[in-house]
């Protein structure tokens, strides 16, 4: 499967499932028991980012995940597409 996956262009459905779960689980853990400061952190980060780039409020995603026993705070900002010309 390892080699095959390298040549495969679209991700396998198992990979899609894993990625979806990563997001779902991280979000649910974030709201449950996880750090309470996340919503505020998100809002303040958004304010800072908006000073430089005009992004949508939904464009900032913050998740707390777990990798190799460490907690990983993941911040994703979707930048708006540049207008032509």
């Amino acid at each position, binding site marked *: *499967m390892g080699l*095959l*996956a390298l040549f*495969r262009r679209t991700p*396998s*459905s*198992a*990979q899609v*499932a*894993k990625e*979806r*779960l*990563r997001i*779902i*689980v991280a979000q*649910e*853990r974030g709201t*449950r*028991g996880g750090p309470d400061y996340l919503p505020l952190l998100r809002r303040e980060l958004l304010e800072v980012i908006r000073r430089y780039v005009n992004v949508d409020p939904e464009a900032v995603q913050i998740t707390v995940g*777990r*990798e190799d*026993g460490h907690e990983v705070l993941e911040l994703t900002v979707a930048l708006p597409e540049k207008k032509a010309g």
Partner: protein
Amino acid sequence: MLDELIADGFDYIICDSPAGIEKGAHLAMYFADRAIVVVNPEVSSVRDSDRILGLLASKTQRAANGHGGVQEHLLLTRYSPRRVAAGEMMSVDDVKEILGVEVIGVIPESPDVLSASNAGIPVILKEDSDAARAYEDAVARLLGESVPLRFLEEPKKGLLARLFGG
């Protein structure tokens, strides 16, 4: 109730929990020392398992008394090595990585499970069944034995089976 069973001399008391995260699950888990979370390699099942793991860490007597929570194990069922190899199903490692809990057993998808259930006979009693052997392994691990996981690879087909589309 539990005290009576202990007085009767049972070493292990296994409490089955109804599917779903409702009152039954809370009742089953509250006095637990260890929990076996049964999960299918499927998004909704893994998601629910994560919720249950969250409850095990907070809503049990051990958690309330600060005894460090319940010891958690994952039991992966309906596992299809063929579909995992084809990228159609999440692997043991995928599920383990997402949930962050050690795996106590992997039960291969098997028609024996439904037929045993239909007949009202525990599948573990069935001879020549991969699922039964996998359950036996899981029990051994629960009792503290170190048994390697098996049935994670698709059985190799012989040339004849290939030729005849087995």
